[in-house]
């Protein structure tokens, strides 16, 4: 009952956030103008603002928030590590390095792309390459070792980090700024075509969110136990990791690095609704979307006419609440501690 309540609350909040994302911003709109704008019945400028700016932006925030949070749940379950997040297996760092590369060096074949696709394309290649490298490093004699995934991820992260460091060193001032802005994340540049691409790349993950609750529950008992319960462990590992890599790779390549959501949302929900993956997966998707929508709303309205990088906002509102919950949990567990 509590679970359903929280899911419904999440959905309602999500819809409210989207509505407010459409209404609020540097350009003031009334609710009437907002709704007219959604149906394309307002004046030209309002229509463009709703259709080309605010709506794709809100959808990008919702979809990437959901993808990041749900990927966090899956990564934590598969790798059996509460600290696991998509960023830990090299996806974000690889994307960051490739983005920095595209910012600093004029790469000929990328120059053929329209400017709004240049960085995302490079970043996605980077994330796919680094994720692929991590998995192939962790594979041996027909199985993938989850411990190795974490270690290989760590190594690839450092490598990509060093590469980005090297590029920031040779970058000139404006390029340096562009790299750091990219690393702070933003959904400001969202386009409809990008939403389409992100949705496409997220399909495997969405299927997994809807279907693999029971599998991941079995997984929590241990890989061998899961095997005994009829889970084809190796196949699942591969499929789930590919689903994460595709979805997070696409999301990171459009928004830049938005940290913390993949870590914080799953943990928050475990506090609130327990560890059952059958509801945890979908709820994480919903609440990840809500958190990123709220963050973007704050990022857009708090320093008008400027905008804050969204990654800063997610960490600023997410981290204190997380610490609060963590502390509460700790004190509660101490009360029941017989020693």
């Amino acid at each position, binding site marked *: 009952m509590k679970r359903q309540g929280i899911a419904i609350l999440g959905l309602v909040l999500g819809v409210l956030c989207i509505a407010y994302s459409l209404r609020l911003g*540097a*350009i003031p709109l009334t609710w009437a103008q907002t709704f007219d704008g959604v149906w394309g019945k307002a004046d*030209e400028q309002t229509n463009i*603002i709703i259709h080309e700016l605010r709506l794709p932006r809100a959808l990008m925030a919702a979809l990437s928030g959901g993808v990041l949070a749900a990927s966090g749940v899956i990564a934590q379950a598969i790798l059996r590590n509460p600290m696991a997040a998509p960023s830990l297996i090299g996806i974000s760092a690889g994307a960051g390095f490739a983005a920095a590369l595209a910012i600093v060096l004029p790469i000929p074949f990328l120059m053929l792309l329209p400017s709004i696709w240049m960085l995302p394309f490079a970043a996605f290649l980077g994330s796919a390459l680094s994720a692929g490298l991590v998995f192939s490093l962790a594979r041996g004699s027909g199985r993938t070792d989850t411990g190795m995934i974490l270690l290989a991820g760590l190594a690839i992260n450092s490598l990509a980090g060093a590469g980005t460091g090297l590029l920031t*060193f*040779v970058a000139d*001032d*404006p390029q340096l700024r562009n790299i750091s802005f990219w690393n702070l994340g933003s959904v400001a*540049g969202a386009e409809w075509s990008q939403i389409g691409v992100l949705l496409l790349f997220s399909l495997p993950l969405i299927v997994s969110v809807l279907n693999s609750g029971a599998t991941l529950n079995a997984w929590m008992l241990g890989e061998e136990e899961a095997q005994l319960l009829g889970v084809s462990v190796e196949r699942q590992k591969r499929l789930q990791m590919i689903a994460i890599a595709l979805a997070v790779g696409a999301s990171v390549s459009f928004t830049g690095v938005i940290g913390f959501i993949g870590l914080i949302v799953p943990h928050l929900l475990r506090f609130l609704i327990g560890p059952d993956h059958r509801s945890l997966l979908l709820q994480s998707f919903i609440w990840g979307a809500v958190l990123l929508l709220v963050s973007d709303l704050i990022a857009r309205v708090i320093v008008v*006419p400027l905008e804050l990088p969204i990654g800063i906002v997610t960490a600023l509102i997410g981290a204190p609440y997380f610490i609060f919950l963590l502390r509460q949990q700790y004190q509660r567990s101490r009360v029941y501690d017989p020693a």
Partner: protein
Amino acid sequence: MRIVFASFLFAMSATAFAETPRIISLGGGITELVCALDACDKIVAVDTSSTFPESLKALPKVGYARNLSVEGIVALKPTMLLLDADAGPPHVIQKLEALKIPITKVNSGSKLEDARVRIKEVAAALGTPDKGEKLLKEFDTKIAKLSSYQNEKVKKRVLFIYARGGKHLMVAGDNTAVSTLLTLMGAQNAIQGIDGFKPLTAEAVAAAKPDVILMTQSGAESIGGRDAVFALPGIKITPAGANKKLFLDSDLELLTIGPRTADVIEAMHTELGLKG
């Protein structure tokens, strides 16, 4: 339908312009020109690099010119958006165009000729080409007066260090505003044969043997002031380090060529003890 709306909007913005122009100027060099052409009072917002004249401080800032937000700009209802190749990101410029914000793109080069082009472009955008001609004539006259500086026999070697915090130091090579300034001043850029800004290394600095170090005030502050500059690796063993020769000026004066350039050169020429 779209076309009807578009033309309606265009007509609206055209009449709005006829009444009260609202200019958003991005880039310190461009903003300075707008003011030099007597249109300072028509500016409604600027970017963070527009620091001259002082009166602009009270205006709303739309942020860093490379990281603009569409709505922030549209909400200020500009009838003219002046920017150069640095403004971005590209998707923001595209959307501003879709929203029919009248954008004028201005030359961003670092040569004397680029400054001349800029003056003409901004004057044309403001609808006051005559004022542009006048400013251009003043500019040319002032620059022509500096010609004697360039007959210097032994040219002083000047090294420009661009700093943004302790770890990020760059030197200016060819095709920078600084190299244009130095040439006009009859000095020599201590760093030759590199294009634009490159990271500074101790050995390159030592090998460049600068007589004088040139920096922006904010740059020198960002690494901790005069003493910190002379403590930079490599500087100590150069003539500039030994004689503690450091010259500071504002970002805008050193990084763009504009109406004040001639005055800057004159002041620096005296300060650096060059003959002319």
